[in-house]
């Protein structure tokens, strides 16, 4: 080793000595709003880790797999084919005149984003035991990186939607831009649920086991394979409490019908997401303080 390698790095240690330093105070954990702001400041400092880890998720998933990135497309595509066979040939579902393939695919996009995020992020803490017990970094980065990776898949899979719309000659209108705030609401909601589940999974591993079933039920409780209009009116009020209803229905509306979203249903989803996200984050930070002891 050449001596100048170490001397170059030591030199900036000296210049650093005079720079102002950040003072950190560590106390016993408590549920508090200051945990929220303090946590966000720390998270911002570790922004590069969130980026690196998200890219890493995407890379690792497709490394040494034959079909590579096309897996992101294959999953919603194959589900779409199955549902199209079942719900337009075997049992007929009324789709307000839209071809069933594109009707279901446009809903499967946000749904797959949601379910992939959750099924991966739930294990986010537990599957990184060796890191969590040895190095400190804001732990929410682990579940968040899975959400970001799933968002990447969502973008890839959207290209197929464009193809389907060209094939079925469905044009986009400016209202399609509403997809952006809708996906933002979905991202907030999925982040909240991911934080809650991954933190709870540390103590109760049952959650990971129950996830596939839960997601299956959740999908049928959302207007993915059928339209919202098929839900009996007297059940609607209850049905709308599922934030995925407002998200999926309005996403489909903005893209396929080219009309602005129904602000009532979307508003319910947005409200739930906005309330849930900070609550889930505070809960997560409280669990994080001692997660290394019980994981």
């Amino acid at each position, binding site marked *: 080793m050449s001596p100048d390698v170490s001397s170059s790095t030591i030199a900036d240690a000296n210049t650093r000595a005079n720079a102002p330093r950040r003072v950190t*105070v560590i106390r016993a954990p408590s549920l508090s709003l200051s945990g929220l702001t303090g946590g966000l400041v720390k998270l911002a400092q570790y922004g590069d880790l969130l*980026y690196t880890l998200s890219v890493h998720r995407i890379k690792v998933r497709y490394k040494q797999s034959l079909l590579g990135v096309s897996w992101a497309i294959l999953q919603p595509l194959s589900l779409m084919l199955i549902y199209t066979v079942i719900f337009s040939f075997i049992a007929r579902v009324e789709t307000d005149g839209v071809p069933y393939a594109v009707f279901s695919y446009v809903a499967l996009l946000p749904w797959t984003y949601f379910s992939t995020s959750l099924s991966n992020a739930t294990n986010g803490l537990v599957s990184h035991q060796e890191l969590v017990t040895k190095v400190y970094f804001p732990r929410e980065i682990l579940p968040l990186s899975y959400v970001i990776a799933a968002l990447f898949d969502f973008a890839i899979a959207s290209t197929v939607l464009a193809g389907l719309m060209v094939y079925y000659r469905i044009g986009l209108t400016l209202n399609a831009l509403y997809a952006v705030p809708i996906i933002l609401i979905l991202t907030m909601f999925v982040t909240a649920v991911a934080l809650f589940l991954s933190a709870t999974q540390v103590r109760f591993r049952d959650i990971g086991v129950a996830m596939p079933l839960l997601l299956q039920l959740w999908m049928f409780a959302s207007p993915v394979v059928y339209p919202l209009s098929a839900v009996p009116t007297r059940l609607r009020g209850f049905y709308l409490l599922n934030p995925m209803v407002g998200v999926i229905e309005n996403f489909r509306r903005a893209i396929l019908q080219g009309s602005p979203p129904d602000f009532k249903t979307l508003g319910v989803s947005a409200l739930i997401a906005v309330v849930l996200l900070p609550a889930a984050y505070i809960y997560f930070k409280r669990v994080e303080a001692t997660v290394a002891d019980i994981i």
Partner: protein
Amino acid sequence: MIDLKLEHVSKRYRIRRESEAGAARNPLVRKLQSLRQRSEEFWAVRDVSFEVGRGEALGIIGHNGAGKSTILKLLSSITAPTSGEITINGRLSALIEVGSGFHPELTGRENIYLNGSILGMRRRRITEKLDSIVEFAGVRQFLDTPVKRFSSGMYVRLGFSIAAHLDPDILLLDEVLAVGDAAFQAKCLQRIGDLKRSGTTIVFISHDLSAVERLCDRVLLLRQGEVVASGAPHDVITQYQNTAFQSSQTPRAEMENQEKLVEIGRLSFRDAGGRETNVLRAGEPFTVSLGFTAHERVADAVFEVFFYSADRELQCQCTTEVSGRQLALEPGAGTVEFSGPGLGLLTGVYYTDVVIKERGTPKFFDWSQWNSAALRVDPGRLVRGKFYMPCEWRLTQESEADATAAAETTWT
């Protein structure tokens, strides 16, 4: 200037014991029972207060379970204290286990970015340091190879190299020096010395007492989660060794639930003057004394004491195996003594394993080990090299008065 301050810091763990007796068959009922059951409390760290000044190197020593690692975890925010307050002035990095967080499928380069970010480095900073990191680890040709194809040595070197380039204000070290080959270890120690000279505050937690003594300005001794001594490295280490000597012999896991025909008693050392001690001098006469209790008659037993260096590498052994003499034991207590004119071990700390077995069979009567250093060797007769070799010398010179000479050196 104080960089690190702990005020009345405590950490409690709850241990829930699962009692076999009275446990219900149904797992659900059992779960409910365990929820009702009062969990046991265990204070890993209790009311610990200390300060570390800027540029100071503090060593923390103690037995396994004394709370060393818990303190490190508290300082590095891996877990939060139950009570008390920790104030950290500056950027703190912990070098706890080298290479945690490498992903086998990713290349060396990708892992440098991943691991560096996990340790809190910005991507831009990693890019600046990339050459230096690769150079230090000596893995340039393999930079774009997945690390799963790395040798374990390369893995460890790369891990340390990334961590060594963190440039923190405060550096926490935990047993990291016990990695790599001797040359790399020396490089690591040099790097840590450089950081220290450049003003980095260091907290060093280790079993390697000689490294602690070399590196640290001050040492804390922990026992059962409490600070029992603090002061100059040599004084505290000596105090620790005097207690370590008596208390830390534990049976190997393999020996649990096994009936012992012969049981290991006390292991002790005596120096040239016949005084019992745990500090011997290289090259001076020594005695290793091993007590035992035989519960039955044994036809032919073998007694062995193994000496391991701080990095857990076997250095040498004392054994009765090669003597060729039959060693029959009658029921009762006894002692086996090994002694020699010059201790071959060089300066350092040594861990010991003790084995009593039956000759010619793989059967162990008893096997125990020291979890902390049992023996320290101080410089005695000054020698260079890897071990002390006792030898005698005689001078022969051809002079005009006496022409007969025989060049002879007696080696023993």
